[in-house]
């Protein structure tokens, strides 16, 4: 087994998207479960110091995961994931949106489209998460809330600027 598990974070040129690749020291089934079962997602999905709380989940095409990320002060940010495609053990896609405590989608916060795929090689499972965003404004709002992540078209140009400075 490899000692260091790869973690790549790349900006996709001209596609308003980012790709996150991460290797995990576990078999495909275990990693798949960690991404698709509420009791496991609740143990890692919210970045520290937030905690994740699942309100309801139906993991199937057309189903939905309704959850909250809870700040140390107890403030809850509600989110929903609408599953749009599921290929058991291999890949799933969903649209992620912010919503209120009743589950009504935020009209101000545009969603993120996720496409996650799983691939095991010799006991190490690689997850590739492809995130597509509507706009840079969407990204800014999301990151300022402290949770979500991403990048968008045009920033590859800014990266070139940064490398010149």
């Amino acid at each position, binding site marked *: 087994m490899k000692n260091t*598990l790869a*973690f790549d*974070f790349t900006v996709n040129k001209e596609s308003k998207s980012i790709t*996150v690749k*991460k290797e*995990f*020291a*576990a078999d495909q089934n*275990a*990693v798949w479960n*960690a991404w698709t079962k509420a009791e*496991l997602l609740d*143990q*890692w*999905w*919210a*970045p*520290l110091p937030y905690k994740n709380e699942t309100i309801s989940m139906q993991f199937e095409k057309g189903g939905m995961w309704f959850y909250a990320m809870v700040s140390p002060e107890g403030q809850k940010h509600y989110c929903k994931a609408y599953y749009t495609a599921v290929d058991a053990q291999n890949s799933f896609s969903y649209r992620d949106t912010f919503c209120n405590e009743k589950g009504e989608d935020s009209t101000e916060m545009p969603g993120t489209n996720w496409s996650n795929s799983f691939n095991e090689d010799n006991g190490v499972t690689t997850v590739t998460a492809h995130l597509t965003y509507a*706009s*840079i*404004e969407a990204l*800014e709002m999301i*990151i300022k809330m*402290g*949770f*979500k*992540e*991403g*990048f968008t*078209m*045009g*920033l590859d*140009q*800014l990266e*070139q*600027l*940064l490398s*010149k*400075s």
Partner: protein
Amino acid sequence: MKLRRDPFQAIADPTRRAILVLLASQTMTAGAIANEFNAARPTISKHIQILNECELIESTQQGREIYYELKAEKMKDIDNWLEQFRNIWESRFNQLDNLLSNLKNKEQ
């Protein structure tokens, strides 16, 4: 709309991003910048004004002309922003690594 003047607002617009790219290699007058775009000159002037207020560019008077140039240090704010994304993912994945390792230990 609430007025906001920070680097993120500056880069929210594709025309403004294009202006920043132009200014990355040279200082230019507003007229020279406008010549690079199909948009009406007042539209480009507005974009230049916003970039100026966001302090991503600065202007210097040379004779009758005002030249604009890029302020590279402000761009670093955007770089920090990218770093923040990475930290969020790292935090998340550290927890998942631990979870998977705990699950494995339980099985054994």
